[in-house]
């Protein structure tokens, strides 16, 4: 007998007390979102919660994006920036920092030598201060937002912002690789106290554009 059959057999014997045909739907008495508020309130909450977890939050009109992005890269002193293939080229129009394409053959060690990365996002969650990446062309492969130490993420507001985790899951496609990011890398492993900055990007800048 294979272990698969053995385990499934044990499960079925263990559940001998469950009446055949039992199938009770799970009641969901919880809220779809916490609190009401218009789009501007939701975006403000996103900014507040991102900042509380030490992300650096910037707000601008879409037209101002190229200037803001150029300013952030310059302030960081970045000499190179990773750019996903589908990123709006206009966002970098005002910056002369060297662009590095997200190529399948680039090794982790090569990515480690790039200073910054800039991406869009799939959705942002106001209640938790979270941005979610789904590997779309404007976000690139997961590794490019992981190895460089400085991540600039552009969120188009208000259309990419939802209030809550349930609303975010509704918008996401589980077949895509997803990364939920809430502030820069952190740890609570020393005396259960939170310290920012371990393996992922230690500086996360979120630009709320719109």
């Amino acid at each position: 007998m294979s272990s698969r059959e053995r385990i499934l057999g044990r499960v079925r014997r263990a559940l001998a007390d469950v009446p055949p045909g039992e199938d009770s739907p799970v009641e969901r008495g919880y809220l779809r979102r916490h609190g009401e508020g218009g789009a501007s309130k939701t975006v403000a909450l996103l900014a507040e919660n991102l900042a509380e977890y030490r992300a650096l939050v910037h707000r601008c009109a879409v037209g101002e994006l190229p200037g803001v992005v150029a300013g952030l890269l310059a302030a960081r002193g970045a000499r190179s920036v990773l750019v996903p293939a589908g990123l709006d080229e206009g966002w970098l129009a005002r910056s002369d920092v060297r662009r590095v394409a997200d190529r399948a053959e680039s090794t982790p060690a090569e990515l480690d030598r790039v200073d910054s990365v800039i991406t869009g996002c799939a959705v942002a969650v106001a209640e938790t201060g979270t941005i979610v990446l789904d590997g779309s062309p404007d976000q690139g492969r997961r590794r490019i937002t992981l190895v460089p130490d400085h991540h600039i993420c552009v969120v188009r507001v208000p259309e990419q912002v939802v209030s809550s985790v349930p609303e975010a899951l509704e918008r996401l496609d589980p077949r895509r690789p997803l990364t939920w990011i809430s502030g820069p890398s952190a740890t609570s492993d020393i005396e259960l106290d939170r310290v920012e900055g371990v393996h992922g990007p230690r500086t996360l800048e979120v630009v709320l554009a719109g």
Partner: protein
Amino acid sequence: MSGTFVGMPAFPEAARAAVSDETLRGNLRHATHTIRAKRAKAVAEVADWAQLREAGKRIKDHTLRHLDRYLVRLEESVTAAGGTVHWAADADEANRIVADLVKATGEREVVKVKSMATQEIGLNEALEAEGIRAYETDLAELIVQLGKDRPSHILVPAIHRNRGEIRDIFRREMGRWGRPAPDGLSDAPADLAEAARLHLREKFLRAKVGVSGANFMVAETGTLVVVESEGNGRMCLTLPETLISVVGIEKVVPTWRDLEVFLQTLPRSSTAERMNPYTSMWTGTTDGDGPRVFHLVLLDNGRTDTLADEVGRQALRCIRCSACLNVCPVYERAGGHAYGSVYPGPIGAILSPQLRGTASEVDASLPYASSLCGACYEVCPVAIDIPEVLVHLRERVAEGGEAVRDGNKVLLRPAKGHAAERAAMRAARWAFARPGALRAGQRLASRTRRLHPRTLPGPGRAWTAGRDLPAVPSEPFRDWWQRTRGGRDGER
């Protein structure tokens, strides 16, 4: 479970040693009190916490009651998404599967994301025996691995270490495993985190094989979820070419939508955050992004035996948040090592004796490692009634009875060392069934009360070592009731 804790003394002896260690007690008190207040605040922020908790409980119960169906569904989904599913009945089989998979890649080292399942089966030791080096990459796991130590907390395995001890371990050991600690390393948490970043980076960048567990597996879509903070999880899940995930069968949830409950309750319960810094979700493999090969090893190792117990099976709802450890007065004083298992604290006290059985001295003692205060039940985000299961397991230890081990029904004999308890209960049953005898006994006890010892002799000594023997009143209650007509005569 693994042999990591073989030869462990029973909980009372191990706890006695732990409570006399003042550094340990200080470290634990500081850490658990820090997180307690924060958790309460994070939970209070959510108006529908009670409903989320109830939904989490129901989703898990529903899944467990149809576990065969959801496991088969999960297997189909993962396979359809490009993954390969393996089934492991016990720790040895899981270790063998993983070792063979690593060997097939030709690699001799793996990077690991913190995972309770691989701790439970002793995977690192098993790989070591096959000549494969496993590098722990979670900061606390790294501290434990470098310090040749054992984990003492589910979320923060190095909770028993303070910053000064961690600095000493890093200075002493990092050089032997790779990049040494920076010169003049201080004990500031930020500097210690930086040292770990530098030490592990070279390992991440060259890693070809990653090993992980998972917090959740979605049957409907085949999606696995890892919830973490540091980014070491993302490194292990996305940089290597081969990813092997070892996951307990109870980690499956039916639908994508079910995640909306646990992604709200888990971070607030464990690190007291609205959301943890990083959550990775992957479904099989993705062309050009992340590992090209994905293996999922589904682990039983005592879980189906636990499932067979109608009272005890609720322990399988556990999402490993560790809130119950942080509020437990016994854990706070005894620390995690005394529990003799990778699962310490209240949840460990009900999980270990079910996963491993109650044959060993330490496992038989675990259901007693509690004052039954109920704080664990109150904070549990999936409403596991830990006190109920503790009492149930105490009965099993003291009285014996039917249980399932390795898929077979067995009849457990009453454990040794509980003879006095059983005799006392039998005597009580006899006396309570005979009012005359009870009355005579109570009067005798009242009249001789000045002669009563403060502590019990013989096998009762342990019981009175930590508490006073209750004082017997000068007049039995029933005599008082009769004499004063239930107090109506106004006489005391």
